[in-house]
């Protein structure tokens, strides 16, 4: 314990047992002015975005231009291939015939948007990511099972080893630890009287 004092911690990792507990903890951190914290939950919790004070997802802004690019690509491709480069007269229709292009314009719009949605989501989430310090905690595996975690990063301007600990204890976390970035270490913090 004494040696770890010199190392810079990455974050506090507080564990909770129930959905209401974790959402109240997020509200407390938000109200205390923290910004670099996150909740880790096995499923998306309704109302957590507001509890953490997050703004709306930006994904739609990313997808829309790509969707339009899909429409434009399909249109340009068919117009040039059938109308300009290799005109085919079939069934007496003009070589460039907009109504018959609608299905493919639709399909490519959907195809482009789907790729933009998936890769845009991964980009906004900075995934895939090989490793993350929270994985150093052995207890963290339960975040994809039945436990709820809140990580408060040391980079947060409000972060303070003592004060942050008090906020998390006050929110009735059932377990509290510090995770370090590089050496895969964690340190369990004994909980005060607020322990449930």
């Amino acid at each position, binding site marked *: 314990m004494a040696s770890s004092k010199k190392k810079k911690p990455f974050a506090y990792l507080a564990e909770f047992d129930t959905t209401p507990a974790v959402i109240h903890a997020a509200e407390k951190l938000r109200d205390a002015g923290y910004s670099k914290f996150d909740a880790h939950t096995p499923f*998306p919790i309704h109302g957590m975005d507001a509890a953490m004070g997050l703004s709306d997802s930006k*994904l739609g802004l990313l997808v829309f231009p790509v969707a339009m690019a899909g429409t434009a690509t399909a249109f340009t491709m068919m117009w040039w*291939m059938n109308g300009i480069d290799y005109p*085919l007269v079939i069934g007496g229709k003009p070589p460039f015939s907009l109504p018959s292009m609608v299905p493919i314009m639709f399909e490519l719009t959907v195809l482009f*948007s789907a790729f933009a949605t998936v890769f845009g989501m991964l980009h906004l*989430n900075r995934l895939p990511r090989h490793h993350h310090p929270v994985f150093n905690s052995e207890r963290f595996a339960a975040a994809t099972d039945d436990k709820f975690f809140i990580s408060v990063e040391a980079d947060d301007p409000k972060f303070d080893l003592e004060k942050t600990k008090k906020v998390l204890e*006050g929110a009735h976390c059932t377990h509290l630890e510090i995770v370090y970035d590089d050496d895969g270490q964690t340190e369990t913090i004994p909980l005060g009287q607020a322990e449930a």
Partner: protein
Amino acid sequence: MSYPYLPKKELGEVPLAGEGATFRSLTEAVARVTENPAPRGWWIAFLSAASFLGVMTIAIGYLFWTGIGVWGNNAPVYWAWDITNFVWWIGIGHAGTLISAVLFLFRQKWRTSINRFAEAMTIFAVICALVFPGIHVGRTWYAYYMLPLPSEMQMWPNFKSPLIWDVFAVSTYATVSTLFWYVGLIPDLATLRDRARNPLRKKIYGALALGWRGANRHWQNYERAYLILAALSTPLVLSVHSVVSFDFATSVLPGWHATIFPPYFVAGAVFSGFAMVMTLMLITRAVYGMRSIVTMKHLELMNKIMLVTGSLVGYAYGMEFFIAWYGGNDYELFCFKNRAFGPYAWAYWTMISCNVISPQLFWFKKLRTSIPVMFVVSITINIGMWFERFVIIVTSLHRDFLPSSWGYFRPTLVDIFTYCGTLGLFFTAFLLFLRWVPMIAIAEVKGVLPESDPHYHPEEAHADHHHAEPVAAEAEE
């Protein structure tokens, strides 16, 4: 205070997951299937499916070596089992996206127990479907002509043809369904990663889970992505079978040239897809003990959808006949008379009894909630839907405008082997899915449990919470 996720007993609502399901019990029930050794039944099913897959490989190899003549297709029936199977498989592939996208947009939370399953089935059905247009072109090595690729002939595809629309629709559908499925899988793959003890297993699931850590800042974008994909897939799923129906409807052949085709095909696709989901789910649910996750309520709701879509299909059959008479076109009327009373009458009446009559049993709650009845009906519907495509394709072709060229199509052994072989391909892929991938969307089902509600307090925790409030306020200072 009322909890939105708690069933309202006064309205006769029952919980979406069985009584007593918890987060932990859900994780256990679903994840352990992929962790424990496969039961013997799985191996028996897998080996038989794989041998059918082998039969398909041989049948297709023989086809490539010899040519399309090994099939029963001949003038005037140029399209037969190949396109029948293609349309049948694509139709089956519609239920997954319907369940995952359309029901998601309608906030039908019961879909969470069955969507993963149905989406996987969709992907495998689309793969089976894609086999047929790939091999029926005759010289398969020229199949790339279907794509707008620059070639030495300096030609481009004819984009006014519904057949090329089909190439785009089906390949888009296959891609988007796969993406949708994979996005849904990410949190559950992370669950498997976190439970893994074997280092290799941890590495593989770890790589597939992309470093997912359940962060709310991620869930936010993830849920938005899921919503957008659902919104994209909803018109897509309706477009795919519409485009498939254009292959027929834009031709001038009596029996095909009908404006009712797009909605009629889509209803049939949903109908057959739900039937296939039902068949597979009844078996899997019994074998793997998923009865508390996929409850009778789910099965009953699916049966209701089959009743609706089955009746829509029945309406379309009736309307085709009405228009054939009302439209006053002699060729059209002949075609439909020939369907119902000609040489293929046996196929037509098989279709009617399987598709229109058998789902009517679901009007009765007792039959709708009986597992043996729904199992038999779901298989009957799949047979009926195969016959629907066969009837549409073959009966419209076999007596064309020139009576001297009339004929009667009979499948050859290679036809039969190829078709049964794709069933092998489908079940091989499906069994591998059951073995290695969480078959139920764990994270999504957790999200509909009463415990997941942010206001959910069991009584004792509730009292404790208010008592503790002042302490928390002090700590913030």
